[in-house]
């Protein structure tokens, strides 16, 4: 049986994972690594959902964590297709170089 004393530590781990992912999005320039950091942030949300569901004795957190996993998979599929396409037209894989794509 997992002690309830660990609940704040689980939430702190979720906050830590989210912030590490956000920091990675900000300081890394490789779009592949940026996508991995987004996965980290989504997993931090999942961890918070599951931890709250466990300690509030509710299963709804797990249902929503499942949906977050599906959304993350869809996001990875589209994102990696975009990266492949960017590579195919001969652009460097660098977030800073790609920032003028919006123009």
């Amino acid at each position, binding site marked *: 049986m997992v002690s*309830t004393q*660990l*609940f704040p530590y689980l939430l702190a781990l979720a*906050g830590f994972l989210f912030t590490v992912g956000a920091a990675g999005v900000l300081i890394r320039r490789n779009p*592949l690594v940026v996508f991995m950091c987004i996965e*980290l942030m989504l997993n931090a949300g*999942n961890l918070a959902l*599951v931890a709250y569901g466990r300690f509030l004795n509710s299963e709804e957190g797990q249902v929503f964590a499942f949906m977050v996993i599906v959304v993350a998979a869809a996001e990875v599929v589209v994102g990696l297709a975009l990266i492949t*396409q960017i590579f195919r037209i001969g652009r460097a894989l660098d977030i800073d170089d790609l920032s003028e794509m919006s123009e």
Partner: protein
Amino acid sequence: MNAILVVAMALTAISSIGVVISREALYSALSLVVTLGMLAVVFLLLNAQFLFAVQIIIYAGAVMVLFVFIIALLNPEAEDRPVADWHMTIALGGVVVTTILVFVAARNGVTYSDRGFRGQLIGSANNPYHAFSFPVGPVNASGNVQTVAGQLFTTFLLPFEITSLLLLVAAIGAVYLTRRAAH
């Protein structure tokens, strides 16, 4: 149980740092595999057996294989980043401050009421969450998969259907994006 959970949490935190600071994208991907696997262990210990299986199959299986495949296909050159400049300092400070703030808020049971945010000890001072300390309880009494599926196909049927629509759109979008343009 508690010892395994603490070890899994520590490995999750350490390998998540590895995702950000690895110089090569492949090492980041391998660190992410460890992070996701250890998170799966945490889910298992939190009585979310279905999510444990889903996490292993979808993340460590499908998503990471896709990542490693793309990395091998594109073979991006090794980055000379990250360097220890002021971005790094701000990021590190943000990580530390957020973790401490979330821990303090969770430890003291910060709640929101009409008087705004305030600290409130829910249970005793030593263990504010003892009011939540249920055993496995009625939630998982009939099995985790049955419980989650029951919610998924009744209460959350509409979000579930919208999620399936999202998957369809993502599949069509990926095929459209990667098609070879007609000359």
